[in-house]
């Protein structure tokens, strides 16, 4: 395009109107040009965009299409692999299960367990040892299996003559024909009488048996003990499975287990008296399995598992021992379980445990369990009241889960709880306001309606079933299922989808298991306890290096002269050796208050809480007055291992501060059993001194309440003082009408205390405080009349008496001297004066004051 000025065709003299019209036309064309240009630009851009999209889509489609055949091939391949493995796996699993069933005696030849029945697995205690194989080559794992408390039946169904008499008395009082008082009061009183004599559980059994409305037939029992404790709920056999890296690497099966199996000694008449040996204590044959490994193995209660070299070297991460009673059908099994629950109910007690019940005694609170007491008021309502298991109660839910009738819990303490029902209501309320990433994932899998129903019916924060207590041992009921084999019986799609989801995620969570803190990997208990929200105490006992070696068996010691079964020392309030077992709230050592100077009390608490389970009681008969030396003490454990126990001086050194029952200056470890008397006659105290603290006066006092008179008879110093005071007051009465003025106030240098109150003044001696016997002036009418000295022998007049400060504790102390009269084994009689120290009556006040004004009241 040329410039207008450059165009030779433009005339020079042109009309302005024409020129303007030309310019307008040109301007219009310019606008049209711009518009057309924009249109072209837009169209080109659109075409470019579409072309680019087409290219991209074509490329991506090409890629996707090229990947599909390969992926289809992988799908086909893995699908066929899964199918092939599934078939193979089913064959092997079926064969394995069949083999296990035959070995456990649960195959069709010995009995069957229908898969529709849930299995109840009761806990057992395992003891294990890696030992050289009996044939001398290789190593074997020895496993001992002991039934837990819940298995053991110690019930005596028969009634003694006395039980029958008192039981009949109870029902007579409970009947309408009895006279006196209201029927409920009479029944309650009769119940208390029964409880006083037999305890609550036995009283419940007696009334149950003799109930005229529904009497139970039982044999008369003439002895207190007619049968050994036993169990009838053990499986047919045990199978032990050892795991490494979550895989079973060794499996072993035990011998058939007798039914019933004795778990304690038989009564003397039934016990086999021929079993005597220097190697093993004399016990009856039925319970020999408890101490002898070979017998236990023969009875199926011990397993000997040969190990490969690798298994012996690396051991196992987990050992599971289990078994089922397949020889009984479901009905018979439920019957046995009911009998067992009844036996617990009528011997040591059966209860449902509510939430938040403490199992241990602490300074803040006592445990939620108190051993049977003589107070029958608490048990009366439970045992003689209405059934405690209405529909929906915790007891009814527990009975349903165990497959027994609710009657088994109808008189179990707290069986009428409603925690499960409340938990369901809480879940119903919480569902609408709950949200979490996990819940959203689950909702996508199961759908809201199904998931809500599942959450409300089955999910429980405290566990889906109530916990039980048998005697002092709590047992939780934990329902479990093999998720790998989960199938829905009702054809609910959501249930299958949910099970699949859990199965898939379990694979992921298993990866995190190895990272979980565990005592096996983490040495620091504080780190471990930090994971638990409410753990705040722990006790760690460290073994010195080489301690285990010192206890290694010694071949030099080959025999013992006496064999016995040691019994662990136990006492009321003793901490339970099992972590979750209920401690007895009757005695709570954690609540004992002690001052720093209460050494005896502190030592007692220390012993009771920390060292109580270090002691065993062994019965050895030795002659009175004899000097004994224990040359060797060998412990044979339940695996047949023998361990020589060394004397404490050999372990801790000759200068060990620890001594008990040892003789002074003795290097031969002798034990002296001194002659001791049985009961002796004791007179009234001839001297009675009460020691008490007087914190107001900052002294302690020794109050000579009774002293021995010169004639040898008790002299009551209190009465003597009162008599002397009255006599003195009579002598001090001023004559009437003397006309002298009487002062209304009087100044006194100090008050007097009774003459039999002897001060004990605190004095510093070295780093400790001693109480030194002091003396007070005897203030007469006109002047001091000598000093007040003690008159008895306890306070040792004439000598300086220095007592340790701790000897007069806050509660005081009482020391008495009494005549003792006893007869010795040879018939001779002996008379002597003995001393006895007992707790006092607390603090006291003498009222001693100095520099005081005393007001007189005229008339």
């Amino acid at each position, binding site marked *: *395009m040329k410039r*207008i000025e450059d*165009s030779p*065709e*433009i005339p020079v003299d*042109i009309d302005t109107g*024409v*020129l303007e019209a*030309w310019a307008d*036309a*040109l301007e219009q*064309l*310019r606008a*049209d*040009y711009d518009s*057309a240009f924009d*249109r*072209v630009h837009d*169209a080109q851009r*659109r*075409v470019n965009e*579409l*072309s680019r*999209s*087409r290219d991209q*889509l*074509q490329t*991506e*489609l090409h890629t*996707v*299409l090229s990947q*599909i055949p390969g*992926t*289809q091939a*992988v*799908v086909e391949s*893995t699908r066929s*692999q*899964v199918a092939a*493995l599934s078939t*193979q*796996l089913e*064959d*092997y*699993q079926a*064969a*394995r299960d*069949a*083999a296990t069933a*035959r*070995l456990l005696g649960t195959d069709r030849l010995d009995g069957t367990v229908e898969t529709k029945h849930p299995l109840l697995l009761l806990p057992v205690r395992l003891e294990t040892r890696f030992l050289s194989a009996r044939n001398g080559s290789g190593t074997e794992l020895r496993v001992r299996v002991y039934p837990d408390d819940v298995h053991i039946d110690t019930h005596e169904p028969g009634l003694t003559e006395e039980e029958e008499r008192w039981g009949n008395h109870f029902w007579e009082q409970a009947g309408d024909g009895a006279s006196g008082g209201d029927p409920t009061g009479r029944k309650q009183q009769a119940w208390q009488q029964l409880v006083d004599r037999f305890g609550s559980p036995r009283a419940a059994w007696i009334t149950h048996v003799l109930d005229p409305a529904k009497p139970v037939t039982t044999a008369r029992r003439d002895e207190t003990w007619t049968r050994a404790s036993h169990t009838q709920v053990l499986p047919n056999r045990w199978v032990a499975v050892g795991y490494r890296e979550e*895989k*079973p*690497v*060794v*499996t*072993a*099966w035990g011998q058939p287990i007798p039914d019933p199996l004795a778990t304690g000694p038989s009564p003397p008449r039934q016990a086999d008296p021929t079993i005597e040996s220097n190697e093993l204590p004399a016990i009856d044959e039925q319970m020999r399995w408890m101490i002898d490994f070979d017998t236990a193995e023969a009875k199926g209660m011990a397993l000997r598992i040969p190990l490969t070299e690798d298994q012996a070297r690396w051991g196992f991460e987990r050992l599971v021992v289990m078994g089922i009673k397949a020889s009984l059908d479901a009905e018979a099994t439920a019957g046995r379980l009911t009998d067992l629950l009844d036996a617990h109910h009528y011997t040591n007690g059966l209860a449902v445990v509510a939430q938040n019940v403490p199992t241990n005694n602490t300074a803040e609170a006592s445990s939620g369990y108190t051993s049977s007491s003589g107070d029958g008021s608490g048990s009366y309502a439970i045992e003689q009241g209405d059934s405690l298991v209405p529909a929906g109660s915790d007891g009814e839910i527990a009975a349903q889960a165990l497959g027994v009738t609710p009657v088994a819990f109808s008189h179990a303490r707290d069986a009428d709880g409603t925690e499960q029902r409340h938990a369901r209501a809480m879940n119903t309320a919480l569902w609408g306001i709950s949200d979490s990433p996990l819940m959203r994932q689950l909702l996508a899998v199961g759908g809201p309606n199904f998931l809500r129903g599942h959450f409300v019916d089955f999910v429980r924060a405290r566990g889906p079933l109530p916990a039980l207590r048998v005697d002092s041992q709590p047992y939780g009921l934990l329902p479990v299922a093999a998720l790998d084999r989960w199938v829905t019986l009702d054809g609910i799609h959501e249930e299958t989808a949910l099970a699949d989801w859990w199965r*898939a995620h379990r*694979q992921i969570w298993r990866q995190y298991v190895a990272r979980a803190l565990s005592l096996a990997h983490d040495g620091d208990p504080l780190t471990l306890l930090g994971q638990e929200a409410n753990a705040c105490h722990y006790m760690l006992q460290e073994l010195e290096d080489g301690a285990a070696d010192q206890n290694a068996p010694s071949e030099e010691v080959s025999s013992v002269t006496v064999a016995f079964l040691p019994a662990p020392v136990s006492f009321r309030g003793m901490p339970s050796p099992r972590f979750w077992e209920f401690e007895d709230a009757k005695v709570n050592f954690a609540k004992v208050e002690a001052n720093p100077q209460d050494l005896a009390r502190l030592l007692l608490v220390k012993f009771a809480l920390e060292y109580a389970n270090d002691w065993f009681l062994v019965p050895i008969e030795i002659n009175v007055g004899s000097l004994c030396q224990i040359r060797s003490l060998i412990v044979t454990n339940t695996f047949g291992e023998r361990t020589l126990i060394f004397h404490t001086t050999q372990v801790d050194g000759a200068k060990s501060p620890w001594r008990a029952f040892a003789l002074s200056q003795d290097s031969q470890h002798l034990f002296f059993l001194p002659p001791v008397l049985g009961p002796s006659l004791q007179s009234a105290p001839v001297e009675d001194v009460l020691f008490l603290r007087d914190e107001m006066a900052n002294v302690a006092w020794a109050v000579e309440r009774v002293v021995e008179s010169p004639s040898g008879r008790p002299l009551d110093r209190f009465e003597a003082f009162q008599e002397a005071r009255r006599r003195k007051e009579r002598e001090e009465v001023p004559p009437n009408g003397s006309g002298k003025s009487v002062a209304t106030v009087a100044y006194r240098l100090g008050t007097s205390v009774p003459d039999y109150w002897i001060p004990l003044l605190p004095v510093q001696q070295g780093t400790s405080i001693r109480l030194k016997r002091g003396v007070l002036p005897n203030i007469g009418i006109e002047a001091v009349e000598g000093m007040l000295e003690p008159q008895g022998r306890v306070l040792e007049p004439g000598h300086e008496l220095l007592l340790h400060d701790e000897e007069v504790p806050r509660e005081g102390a009482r020391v008495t001297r009494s005549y003792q009269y006893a007869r010795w084994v040879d018939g001779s009689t002996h008379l002597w004066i003995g001393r006895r120290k007992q707790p006092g009556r607390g603090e006291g006040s003498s009222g001693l004051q100095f520099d005081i004004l005393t007001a007189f009241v005229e008339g």
Partner: protein
Amino acid sequence: MAVSQATNEAQAADRQVAEAIAALNPINQAIAAAHEQQASAQTMLTLLDQWNEEIARDPHDRKILEQVAATLSDRATVLEDAHAEARVQNEIAEETLSSLTARCDQLTPALNNVNAQLPAASEELRAANVALAGVTRSIQTLLKSGPRA
């Protein structure tokens, strides 16, 4: 000349034989592997039969049955692991295939849509270019003619 040609033909024949043998090798290997697999499966089946026979024996030999059960337990554990792994692989592959198919189903209509729009856009471009050329020509004509009375 004839010798040279014959030599070449012989070499070509050798090459063909070599190629044929090379092509046959994988087939032979596959056949051998299949035979091996079949033999292994047969052995397993035989063993399984023997074990089942031992399990069903009445009365059973406890020692042998314990060994059989232990072996079965070991192999079942290995198979369970392999089965779980194969199942996971299969689930992953199924999921991948599913997503690929879904993507393919998305891409195809999208491409068709683009292809359907493209002719119209090209036509619009062509028309716009024609219009632009017309306007250009008009301007040139107007400029060329200049203002006239």
